[in-house]
């Protein structure tokens, strides 16, 4: 898919697929092209190259057939400022053949206390939760969530995450955009990291964080061991003494690799006082990818 705005290309040839009942997170900074990609999937724009198929339908040509089957959470606005929370949610519920119980949604999203409040008087987080409720009320097969937890406080964010996990468990497919790494790591079956309109990396969170050479082993032992010899003959490993008696080993640390490291320490006769493993987080991967561009 290619999307251009005038002379600017927002999305250069991105391909992705969301399997049914799975959560795919589009991760990227502002301007990475996430929203442009969603706009095409939602039928608000035609792609300048390539095509989007949503549930087998063309989002523009088959707009009327597609809309009842999907739920869309827009990034901002989208509501009559003078209508109340309850009126808005019941309006969108009335458009659906088998809507969810609006009272249940208001309770689940903590909106019951503002049910009779007009939209323009809501906080940013409340507006976001209402937008999520509107996206879900028609019991869609697939939901598009554009930065679903932006502007939410910690509690609302966790409520939203639980809800998205429940959607997945109930068989709803989810395509969400976020720039929050913990959100992507926690929710997504599959992560697509976008940078300047291209896919910088893609995979499950485990795949992205388990690329060879990114796991770390921190070993505390006697100071001044000849640590350079650890890597000799083991090309997958690098080892350094960062502070006195604190060693960091990175590289191919599968079970055999870890055994080799500990055997080396045993052979030196040193007393090991602590061994910590550190998994690389999605944040490390993300920052590494971003750094490549800055360089």
């Amino acid at each position, binding site marked *: 898919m290619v999307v251009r705005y005038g002379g600017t290309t927002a999305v250069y040839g991105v391909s992705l697929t969301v399997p049914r009942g799975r959560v795919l997170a589009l991760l990227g900074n502002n301007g990475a092209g996430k929203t442009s990609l969603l706009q095409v999937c939602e039928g608000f724009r035609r792609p300048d190259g390539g095509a989007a198929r949503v549930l087998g339908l063309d989002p523009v040509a088959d707009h009327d057939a597609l809309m009842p089957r999907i739920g869309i959470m827009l990034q901002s*606005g989208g509501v009559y400022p003078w209508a109340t929370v309850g009126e808005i949610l019941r309006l969108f519920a009335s*458009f*659906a053949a088998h809507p969810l119980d609006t009272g249940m949604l208001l309770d689940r999203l903590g909106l019951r206390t503002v049910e009779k409040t007009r939209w323009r008087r809501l906080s940013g987080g409340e507006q976001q939760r209402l937008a999520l409720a509107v996206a879900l009320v028609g019991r869609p097969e697939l939901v598009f969530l554009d930065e679903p937890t932006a502007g939410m406080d910690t509690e609302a964010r966790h409520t939203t995450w639980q809800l998205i996990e429940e959607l997945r468990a*109930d068989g709803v497919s989810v395509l969400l955009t976020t720039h929050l790494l913990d959100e992507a790591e926690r929710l997504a079956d599959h992560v697509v990291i976008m940078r300047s309109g291209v896919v910088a990396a893609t995979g499950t969170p485990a795949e992205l964080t388990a690329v060879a050479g990114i796991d770390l082993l921190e070993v505390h032992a006697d100071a001044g061991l000849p640590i350079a010899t650890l890597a000799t003959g083991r090309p997958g490993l690098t080892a350094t003494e960062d502070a006195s008696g604190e060693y960091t080993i990175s590289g191919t640390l599968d079970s055999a690799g870890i055994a080799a490291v500990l055997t080396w320490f045993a052979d030196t006769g040193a007393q090991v006082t602590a061994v910590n493993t550190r998994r690389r987080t999605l944040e490390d991967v993300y920052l590494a990818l971003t750094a490549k561009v800055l360089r």
Partner: protein
Amino acid sequence: MTGTFTPAPGRAATRTVVGRQIRMELLLTARRGEAVVLAMGVPLLVLLGAGLTRATNLPTGNRLGYVVPGVLALTVMSTAFTGQAITTGYERSYGVLKRLGASPLTRPGLLFAKTAAILCLVALQLLVLAAVGVAVGWRPEFGQVLPALGVTVLATAAYSGLALWIASLLRPETVTAAATLIYVLMLAAGGIMFAAPDLGAAGHFLLPLAAHAEALRNTLTAGTAVPGGVWAGLGLWAAGSLTAAARGFRWE
């Protein structure tokens, strides 16, 4: 085993979807009640000012018989064109239209709902203004009420389409300025307080407000038929503007 969110998608019956949207449009209009009253303020002033005093020159001695039907036509334009264009322009900038576009409500459904809500509002305003007219001495004829209603529905559709179309083309601030300017120009040149410029038969096609006002004077004051040129003129405006709205309407 099914959960709370197990998919069960589908669109409600079209009648329900459109009906609920009409209800929301009317609810929000009622909530801006002061705007509705204000929209009737200018027509009321014109009715009382030009109808009861000799403030303007009219081509007839029956001042109320000339002014009241004109004011009714002016109100239709004020609500269906000016008011609706401004509201729709802002709804677009608030993202409301985009949100509705991302729902099972279809584009024809939204256009229909908006026009239907406007028709309800116009009917209410016309009843009030006609009652005021009768109270101050206007004596309407009732023999041609049905054709009068017919041209009014046509005019409403024409203005409504035009409003939705320009709200799609311009930024909301520009829509507000343009819609207000057109309203003021039509108030002056539309044959409400003064005689419309005599453009012959072409006038029925160029000035929809003057054509509508003339038709209402013919039917309600004189009890005569609607001129064929008015039917044709307003029919063309309605067909053209609704087509433009359906083609040019943008959700975003």
